[in-house]
Structures are given as C-alpha cells and as structure tokens.
C-alpha cells in the first residue's frame, strides 16, 4: 500500500444553484447510445443507467494511457494508475462527505451489503440479537441477512409500510422495545414504491437505542445529495452502474471506527500486512477489505460519473427529476385501468404500476416494440409485491435525460396496450 490516501473533505455547504434548469433533451446528446437512437425512450434507469460520453472516455483513456496494476508498482505507469485509482477513491469520499479511508470498493450495492453481513454481522450477531429491516428492502438488503440469520441464529424483524408506501414509523418503538435490535437496514429510495425514506429520523431513533444503521442508497446517490454524516448512516452502499458509471464497481462506505473493528471478509493480495504460511496480519483501512486486484478502470470510471453529476449540479438534477416525475405520475394516473404502486410523500424518479388485465411481461414486451424500454417483473423486491397482492409490476424509471415527450409516448402506448390484450 504505497500511495497516500487523498482526504475527502466534507461536502461544501450547498449554495443555491442559479444556473438555468437542466434540459433533458440537451443532456440526451451526452449519451452516445441515446444520441444514436433518437426514437428510443430509455425508461429503465433504475435498473442501470446509460453512460455519458465523459464516462466512456475516462474508461477508454485509462486503458490507453494509465493501465497498470496498482499499489505494487514503482515504475511511472504504475504510479499513474495508482494515482488515478486512489484519486477516484478520494472523489467518492468527497461526493459522500466522507473520508477516503472509509471508502471500500465493491462490485455494487449487493456486494457491499454482503460484506457488512459477512464481516460485521458474522462477528457481531448471534442468538438473542435482532436485525430490523424494512418491508420494502430490495433482495440485496434482505437475502444476505436471511442467509446469515440461518447460520448465526439471530432474529429478523420487519418494519412494515402502509398503503401509501410509507414506513410505519410509529411501530419503531415496539420493534425496539426488547433492546435486541443491533442493526437497522433501510433502503433510502425504494426501487418499486419510489418512497424516499426518512433515514435521518430512523437513524436518530436507532442510535439512541444503540443500534447501527445500514443505508441502501442505490436509488438515491444518482439523483440527489447523499451525505453520510447528515443522514446519520453507519454503513452506506451504492452501485456505480446505477449512477452513470460502469458495471462491476460500487462502494461500501462505513464509519472508520466500525471498519477498524471489523474482521476482513475476503483473503488475498493487498489486504494483508504480512503473510506466513500459518498466519497473516491485516493491512490498514480500507485495504483490509479489498483482496485481490480491484476493478481499477471501474473505479476511475465511477469517479468520472460522479464528477459529471457534480458538474450538472446535484440540486439541479433533483429539481429537474422531481418535476419530471410529478408530470409522469400525473400522466400515468390518468391512464384507465392503471394503478400506481405507492403514493409516497416524496418520490424518487420512478413509477411502478399495474395495468388491469395485462401482465407486466406483456406490458413491457408491447412497450418494447414501440421503442419504450420499461422493466417488468418483481424488480428484486418480491416481498413488496406480495404485500401489494401482486406477483410483478411494470416500472418506468427516469434519469436526467428523460423528456416529457417520452412520458407522453408512454402514457399513450399504455392505453393501446390495454386495448390490445383485453
């Protein structure tokens, strides 16, 4: 471990952004895939985002100009690679208002949460303990804990959501009453209901009762300011590919003091300080959790994506998407036979729905042929659907490049779709 870790400074306090509002039609031009397909409406950004040219260029440039393995090379190219890679870590830290040594690279949100479960959880949880999850977790926020609970014998509890898709916070008191809850896992933005959950309040409540808080920010990092300290998170996970970055890279952020106490998860090169045949000792943070050659180019690409987001301005993005989402909700709600899943107070840029008499698969296939890409299925959130009495739903999700025109096309196609199948 050779390169000094750049320090991420807490985010500068947000100044009002007085640039004109973002224009999605113009931003479309920054996405090569969209620019090449002018009639294609990509409404599946919650599954994965399209990539701006700036990110593709950063990836390509890394391989053409800086490619070498990191940390262990002394020749100039290896130093360049290490500087790019550790610089990317610093940029992620700055983006989250964290320290660079608190940023652990993973493949994505799923691996981040598994890391917490298998390192912190396996070492910390046992019979008599409980982990509290919300009823609207993505499978990534649920299944790792199920697997570990079966192994370690602790209890899983669930905070339910109401008909509008809001968490029933008034139940927290009872759920915590016996003092067994050690961790709360909460999705910041639901990928089905759209709900933006009040993580700050939940964290304050949990911390008063001695529990830690893990935030699944896969659906919020690309869309709004996410500052780990002001959220009050102890762990926070997100995926690069959902934030305009490449596939294969993601982040686990955790408070330094927690990371210090956690045992390593994977073993191998780079995470060690010293290896004897019979025993090894571990490297410092964050390398203790990064065994083997990391996705170097992916890290560089993710940093380029976050830089690109910041250049647009995160508040401007949030504002543009808020207004587009409100428009979409209005247009969709007016489609006959269409039921929106969730009517939360604050909604992220997505809308899942049920179209009476038409299975979501058929909806998506129909829309697909019209050049409208929406997702259908359970969106890796089967319990949410079961709670709503559905097996699956269709979902349209939005990004900085989504236009009102695309929403109009969606609403009109849905009317035709229902006619076609009934």
């Amino acid at each position, binding site marked *: 471990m050779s390169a000094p870790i750049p320090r991420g400074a807490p985010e500068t306090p947000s100044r009002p952004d007085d640039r004109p509002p973002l224009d999605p039609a113009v931003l479309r031009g920054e996405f090569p895939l969209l620019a090449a397909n002018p009639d294609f409406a990509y409404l599946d950004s919650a599954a994965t985002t399209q990539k701006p040219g700036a990110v593709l260029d950063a990836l390509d440039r890394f391989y053409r100009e800086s490619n070498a393995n990191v940390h262990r090379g002394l020749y100039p190219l290896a130093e360049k690679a290490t500087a790019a890679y550790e610089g990317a870590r610093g940029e992620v830290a700055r983006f989250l208002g964290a320290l660079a040594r608190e940023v652990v690279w993973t493949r994505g949100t799923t691996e981040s949460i598994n890391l917490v479960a298998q390192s912190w959880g396996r070492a910390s949880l046992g019979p008599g303990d409980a982990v509290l999850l919300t009823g609207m977790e993505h499978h990534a926020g649920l299944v790792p804990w199920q697997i570990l609970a079966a192994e370690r014998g602790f209890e899983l509890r669930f905070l339910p959501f109401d008909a509008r898709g809001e968490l029933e916070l008034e139940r927290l008191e009872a759920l915590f009453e016996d003092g067994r809850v050690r961790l709360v896992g909460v999705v910041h933005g639901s990928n089905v209901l759209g709900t933006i959950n009040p993580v700050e309040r939940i964290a304050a409540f949990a911390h008063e009762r001695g529990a830690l808080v893990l935030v699944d920010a896969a659906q919020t990092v690309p869309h709004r300011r996410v500052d780990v300290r002001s959220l009050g998170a102890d762990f926070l996970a997100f995926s690069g590919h959902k934030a305009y970055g490449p596939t294969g890279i993601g982040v686990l952020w955790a408070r330094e003091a927690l990371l210090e106490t956690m045992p390593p998860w994977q073993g191998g090169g780079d995470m060690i300080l010293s290896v004897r045949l019979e025993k090894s000792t571990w490297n410092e943070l964050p390398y203790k959790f990064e065994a083997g050659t990391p996705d170097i180019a992916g890290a560089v690409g993710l940093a380029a994506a976050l830089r690109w987001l910041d250049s647009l301005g995160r508040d401007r993005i949030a504002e543009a998407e808020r207004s587009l989402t409100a428009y979409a909700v209005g247009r969709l709600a007016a489609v006959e036979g269409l039921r929106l899943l969730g009517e939360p107070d604050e909604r992220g840029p997505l809308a899942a729905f049920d179209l009476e008499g038409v299975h979501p698969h058929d909806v998506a296939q129909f829309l697909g042929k019209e050049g409208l890409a929406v997702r259908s*299925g359970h969106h890796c959130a089967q319990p949410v659907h079961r709670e709503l009495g559905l*097996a699956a739903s269709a979902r349209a999700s939005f990004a900085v490049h989504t236009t009102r025109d695309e929403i109009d096309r969606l609403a009109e196609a849905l009317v035709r779709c229902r006619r076609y199948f009934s």
Partner: protein
Amino acid sequence: MSDFDELYQEIILDHYRRPRGAARLDEVPEGEIHENPTCGDSLKLKVEFGPDGRIARVLHESRGCAISVASASMLTGAVAGLVPAEALSLAGEVEAALRGEGDDPRGFLEGNGELAALAGVAAFPARVKCASLAWRALESALAPPPGTDRGS
C-alpha cells in the same frame, strides 16, 4: 409478420383470454408451485389419469403473462390421452424447441397442432422461461425430482 406479432398471434391471445383447463387448485402444496424467478409468476398443475394409465385431464392454475398462460392452456390439449412417458418426451422436445435447439425447432412445433403458435417464442430468449413453465411443471408432476430447492 413482425416478431412481436408472431409472438402474440391471435391463437395465443385466445388461449390467454380463455385458458383451457384453468381451475383453482388449492390442494396443490406450496412446495409444488412452479415459479418463474424473473417475475414471480406461479403455476400449479394437476394431472388426472384414466383407468388405462393415460392422462385423462390436466388442470392448471396459472398466474402469469399471456405466453405462460397460453402455453399451459395448449399443454392441456396436447398431452391429453398420452401415457406419462409420451408426455415427458413431448415436454422435453417442446422445451428444446422453445430454446431454438434441435434440427428444426420451428418445424417440430408446427407439426404439433396448436403448439405451432409457440414458434415465435424462440425469437425472444427472455420469454422462453414463460412458455416453458407449464412444461416443466408437467415434468415434475410426472416425475418429481428428489427433494431439491433449485429452480426448475
């Protein structure tokens, strides 16, 4: 005819709207419900035999898309009167043809009555699971695999 139109031929939509063999099958235990992991769709299936050991009737409770419901519906007609071994062999061939495997998958389906309407599925790999679900359920109804928790 576009791929889409071939997928949703009139005969498919007809089977979807009026599925043959549809029934409530509350007696099928949870462990025997077949699920499509992509969408959480589920299918229960029950085979009734005649005194001659042949399949007298297949009933299904399908919660799924047009393709999966139509496939289940067509299955009921296609296997009635077969002995289990014949039905199993047909199921294997249909699944292979849906995946586009074999010498002439389209020819095979087109030589099997209404199943011809499923020939359009091969152009949509993501829908192969939908069309196969009922056939897999039939296979495990006729030859339940030793206790396993894998996807079918």
